[in-house]
Every structure is written in structure tokens, then in C-alpha cells.
């Protein structure tokens, strides 16, 4: 921690301006009730008074639509597809929240799970995107990162963790890349190394802010959520619980939860043509859609919304922990809680799931067979 730096809050725009040399910098910007990460504009200044971006920043690494390849539909080059390199721009995202950075770290395991199938555009964007996160001093009522193995000032996935101390900002490097970036800023803007008594005070204030934020979350009615019981049960047991129809009952299958979610990563692949050329794109998809699993024959393995809603929660709370060494496929950002049009609350689902798993009979009963 000794290489953390303290900057005056008033100097923060200058720090960001220094980082803007040679890369595109995005900062939180609120307009019309929505917060986005928008290109940094020194004229407009910088507000740190935001909860979190309305949509997750996943589009910076996994755009809603992106070109996978280009092709000609006729002539000599027909059937010759050429990869379209993606993510060549150097970027810095300032002010992303620790939950969203944790989501990027989680998706690394999906997009780069093995050497043969590493996703080139994810890797390219990840390598060129520096993440300077801002710890949350005032988590809101929908936040539950502490229940999902993260926290309001958690550094996982970040290059630098920033703490807003009011009159000052404490920048703590997490990676070597973050350390280099901090040195870059300090060469232009006067900063104070967080050492000695001066540093101790700043580190102490940052720790207090973190503890206060965690205390706010600990007072949430959902503070004690745990996946322990879900982890103990077989996926068959969790799948067969009787809770799913009631959870799915009000769902509209609109998919807003999956689009707002920082860890949802399912995609569709489509061809688009214009004249003699075309491109193959991948678009965000949603497991809430009937088409997501529909076969050409008309058969659908997940024919009703009950199966689809169950899939979303099972994927996050059972399958991803099974496949990713225990880490849940949810970071507790709360966006689906805030944006679901029928108020399905993933925390209530998790609590119901936890209670049902605790009450479920032990796994191992043989599977019932249908009659012919």
C-alpha cells in the first residue's frame, strides 16, 4: 500500500487529463436521469456524485453488437471470411465500481477459458482497457456486493482503486499497469505519496469510508445472503426445487435483467449483408427468450418461462460456482433489482433458494421415470 498517492480533489480532472494523452478516457456522466461512462471533457469537470452507471460497463469489453468477420457474397472472394480485429483503441475507464470490475474478472474465465477458444476481441479490449475504480462510500438499497464475495472498496479486476476522501482522492495501485499509470500522473500533477503520518491519515480515512459502506450494507435486510446451502446441494436437487414456478410467475421474459447485468454474456451470431458484401456480427442475447433454445424442428428444451427464469438463476448461483471454482456468477451490483419492471428481486430469489436448499431432502433418490 506504500505506493498509493494522495491528490487534491480539485486536481483530479488534471490527473485524468494527464491520462488522456494517448488513450480515450471515459468518466461517469449523469444526464437525463441516466449515468453512463462518457468521454472525459475537461470543460465539463468531473462529478463523483453518482451511484453506479445505469447499464453495466460490460459493453466496453463486450459490445452489444460487434463484427466478428467480413465476407463477400459473390465474386472471387465469396466464402473467404476475414476476421475483423476489434478493440484496437487504448482506453481508460475512470470511476467504474468494484462490482463491475469483479464482473470483468469473472468474464475473463468465460471468454478465455482455454487456449483453443480464447475470444480474440475480449482479450484485445481487456489488454487495452485500464480500469480505475472508485470505491463506493454510499452503496444504495439495491446493492449486495458483500454477499457475492466482493465489497464496496474491493480491488479485484481493477488497475487502480480510488477512494473519494472529500477534499482529497487516494489512488491505490492494484496492478503493475496501475502503478505505471500512477507514476504517469504524478509526473504532471503534484501528488503526495501516502506514507508517514500524512499517508496514515489518508489511509485511515479511506478505511473508515470502506468500513462505513460495509456497515450500511450489513444493515440491509439481505445482508446475510449465502450460497453455502446451494453449493451443498446437487444441481439436480436445486433444479427440481418447487420454488421456480412462483419465482417465474410475474416474469415478462423481457430480458432487461440480462442486458443490464455485468456478468450476463450470452450472445447470438447473425449475418448482415448489403449488396455484394456482408459481415457476421454477434449481439447480446438473452436466455429469457423462447428463441434462445428453440430448435429448427420446433422442439424447445426450455419451453416455458419457468425453465428460462430457472436457467438464469441456476447459471449464476449453481453452474458458474461449479465451473469457476466456487465464484458466483453475480457480483451484487443490484441493476436487475432496480430495473426489473415487475420487481423480481434477485436477493429475494436467493433467499428463497437458500431456504429451499436447507429444507430439501438429501440428494440421491433415483429419478422418476415417465410411463410409456
Amino acid at each position: 500500500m506504500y505506493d498509493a498517492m494522495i491528490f487534491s480533489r480539485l486536481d483530479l480532472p488534471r490527473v485524468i487529463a494527464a491520462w488522456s494523452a494517448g488513450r480515450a478516457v471515459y468518466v461517469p456522466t449523469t444526464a437525463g436521469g441516466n449515468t453512463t461512462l462518457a468521454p472525459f471533457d475537461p470543460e465539463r469537470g468531473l462529478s463523483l456524485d453518482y451511484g453506479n452507471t445505469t447499464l453495466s460497463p460490460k459493453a466496453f469489453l463486450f459490445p452489444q453488437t460487434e463484427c466478428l468477420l467480413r465476407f463477400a457474397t459473390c465474386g472471387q472472394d465469396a466464402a473467404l471470411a476475414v476476421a475483423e480485429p476489434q478493440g484496437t483503441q487504448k482506453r481508460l475507464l475512470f470511476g467504474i465500481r468494484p462490482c463491475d470490475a469483479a464482473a470483468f474478472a469473472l468474464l475473463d474465465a468465460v471468454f478465455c477459458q482455454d487456449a483453443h477458444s480464447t475470444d480474440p476481441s475480449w482479450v484485445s479490449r481487456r489488454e487495452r482497457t485500464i480500469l480505475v475504480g472508485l470505491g463506493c462510500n454510499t452503496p444504495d438499497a439495491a446493492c449486495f456486493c458483500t454477499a457475492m464475495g466482493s465489497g464496496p472498496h474491493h480491488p479485484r479486476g481493477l488497475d487502480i482503486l480510488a477512494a473519494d476522501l472529500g477534499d482529497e482522492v487516494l489512488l491505490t495501485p492494484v496492478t503493475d499497469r496501475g502503478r505505471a499509470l500512477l507514476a504517469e500522473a504524478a509526473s504532471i500533477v503534484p501528488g503526495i505519496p501516502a506514507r508517514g503520518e500524512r499517508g496514515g491519515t489518508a489511509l485511515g480515512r479511506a478505511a473508515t469510508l470502506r468500513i462505513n459502506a460495509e456497515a450500511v450494507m450489513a444493515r440491509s435486510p439481505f445482508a446475510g445472503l449465502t450460497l453455502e446451502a446451494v453449493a451443498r446441494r446437487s444441481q439436480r436437487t436445486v433444479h427440481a426445487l418447487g420454488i421456480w414456478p412462483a419465482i417465474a410467475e410475474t416474469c415478462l421474459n423481457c430480458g432487461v435483467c440480462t442486458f443490464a447485468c455485468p456478468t450476463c454474456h450470452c450472445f447470438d451470431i447473425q449475418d448482415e449483408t448489403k449488396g455484394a458484401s456482408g459481415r457476421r456480427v454477434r449481439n447480446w442475447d438473452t436466455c429469457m427468450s423462447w428463441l434462445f433454445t428453440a430448435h429448427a424442428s420446433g422442439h424447445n428444451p426450455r419451453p416455458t418461462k419457468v425453465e428460462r427464469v430457472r436457467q438464469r438463476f441456476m447459471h449464476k448461483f449453481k453452474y458458474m460456482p461449479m465451473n469457476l471454482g466456487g465464484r458466483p456468477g453475480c457480483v451484487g451490483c443490484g441493476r436487475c433489482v432496480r430495473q426489473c419492471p415487475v420487481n423480481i428481486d434477485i436477493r429475494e430469489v436467493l433467499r428463497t433458494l437458500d431456504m429451499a436448499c436447507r429444507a430439501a431432502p438429501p440428494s440421491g433418490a433415483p429419478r422418476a421415470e415417465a410411463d410409456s
Partner: protein
Amino acid sequence: MKSRTFSPYVPRPATLVSKSPLSDLVTLYEFVQDNGKNLAHKPGQFIMVSIYGVGEAPFSISSAPIKESNVFEIAVRKIGAVTKALSELPVGTKVGIRGPFGTSFPVHEFVGKDTLLVAGGLGYIPIRSLLHYQLRHRQEFGRISVLIGTRTPKDRIFTDQIEALAKGGDVEVLETVDMPDADWKGNVGVITTLLPKARVEPQNTHVAMIGPPVMYKFVLRQCREMGIASDRIWVSLERRMKCGLGKCGHCQINSLNACMDGPVFRYTDIERLEEAI
């Protein structure tokens, strides 16, 4: 348009070298890769075929892996956008292919054992890859029984090959149709009506089955009743797929991806997965 970036999403060019109708809607397509290389697939694996401007879809490989020949076959029913476009391609057209992907039938485990192949409808297409592999290495395997069920006599595919196989006498071939026509002289009924007729030694038999979703649980139950151990039964499961790389989420069967953990599963690996069968 010129780039050397490697991407697992970019298909390799292949040329359609022959097409022959198998039934009203099913056609056999033969391809060779333009890079001159053997596809080097294993029985049960699949490829993604691209028709640029229409899309990409997964198809089981129907031919056996053959070192001496670079030709590989898929058999496809005209039913959706890509398959319709495929049916309209003239011989000589180039398409894109990715793969082979997925797991295969573990033929080394079948060595020295009897094999019961159960093919419902188009399930015969991937079963054929395994069967032809076994016929090419005939001396390594014991008895081979093939059960084939189709809806109507008009839906039967590879009829000449199957009739020749049955006449040869080396392989036991049993066929049935759900709905006979006036000319049909063979068995009538669903595929489970064939199992009791097959000469199977349960203790020494490995089973490979592929068919429509409704088929599996009935055949599986019958296999169990016959005394065939679940860990000697392999099933191949079909799901909607997009990437073939375990990322896009479409083909999930509970915690597994059909594209990488499957499509061929040992039954004991999926019997406790509610979404599998």
C-alpha cells in the same frame, strides 16, 4: 479485408463436391477443405457450416474418419434458413466450416465388445459415422446391431447402404417405421419394439443412441431392463448452438455445454441432469 488475426469464429473455406438426395427433405453433401487437409474428426463430432449472408449452423459429420480421403459428409434436412440455402447450392460452391467440435464416441472402449447402435430418424446420420468407422476396423469389434426407426418409409435415408448392410449378414440390421404405407413389409411401431428382437448380450454390449428428444428415455429404460449398465450407454444430444466454443450460452444442459462437454455423453454423466433428457 486482409488480416492475419486468428479468430476461432472465422471459418475455413471448403468446397461442395457432391450432393445426392436421401429423401424428400434430406440431402447428403460431400465437402473437401480448400487447405487440402483432412478434417480429422472423430465419430460423433460436429462442424459449423457457414453460408455467408444466411448464417451458420451445426451439423453432425456423417462420414467415418478416413485418413486416405479428405472428403467428409454431412446429411441435412431442409428445415431452416441455413439448411434451405444449403439445399440450393450448386456443386462446386464454397462454404465456410469450423470445427470439428465436441466429444466423440469412445471407440477404443468398444474394442472387443458388442455394439448396439440405436438411430431414431435423422439420428442415423451421426450413428453412420461410428458404424462406418467400426466397419472399416471390423476385426476390432464384436457383434454390431443397428436399430433404425423412422416415421414413415418415405423418411428412410441411406436405404441402399442399409439394405446392402442387412444382406451382408455381418451386421444385424433391424428397421421399423411408425406409420407404414401400402408397400411397407417390415416392422411397424416405435423403435422400442425392435430392442427385444435384437440379439444382444447385455453384459458385453455398449450402446450408442441418437434420435429425437422423445426417444431417449424409453430406449434408456429398455436398455436398463435388459441389464445393460448405464456407464456403457452413450447418447448424443442436440441443442441450438451459436459459437461452438462454450461461450454463447445457447447449448447449456444444466452445468454442461453440449458443444464442448458433448454432444456425445456417457449416460452416467448426464442421467442426473434434469435438462438432458
